[in-house]
């Protein structure tokens, strides 16, 4: 399983936005669910639902 690094505080040789695997995280001794909960990584196979994202523009007739 792969994750996307979503913070600049993760102590690894990768940057925010890079991909990191579960194997790499476990090798670091990381608690993966806690990192996900803390907003440091996100599950690439489970992106943020569309309804949680801000709309690109106001729908027609909104005003």
């Amino acid at each position: 399983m792969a994750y996307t690094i979503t913070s600049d505080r993760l102590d690894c040789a990768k940057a925010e936005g890079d991909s990191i695997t579960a194997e790499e995280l476990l090798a670091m001794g990381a608690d993966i669910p806690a990192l996900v909960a803390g907003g440091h990584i996100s599950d690439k196979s489970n992106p943020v639902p569309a309804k949680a994202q801000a709309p690109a523009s106001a729908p027609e007739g909104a005003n």
Partner: protein
Amino acid sequence: MAKIVLTDAKVTINSVILSDHINNITIDTKYDIVETTGFSSTAAKTRVAGLADNTVTLDFMQDYAAANVEATIYPLIGSTTTVVIQPASTAVSTTNPTYTFTALVSEWQPLKGQIGSLATASVTWPITGAITKATA
């Protein structure tokens, strides 16, 4: 060997660098003292070291921002996590060793402070197992 002033210590908790939100660190390691004095001892008690009992004490400056102090520590409460502490954030060496251990996040202070003061959190976590010191 030069004496050092701590200005750039590095603290990593669950692989997350929180050094800039911590201003006090103590790794405390001590051994139980097991007395071995026998009837043949003539003038003084004798002792050997028993089991080690280690703790780490950290003073945090609280921050509720995304991927910061509270967001990092709160999911770890009640579980063990890997902690790495280094006197300086520069390369590991004989004069800048790392101390790696597993701490039990047995306490946390989501909110602590008084009017007009910095919100902080001070914790002492027991260490489970040994502390590993690395110099390279």
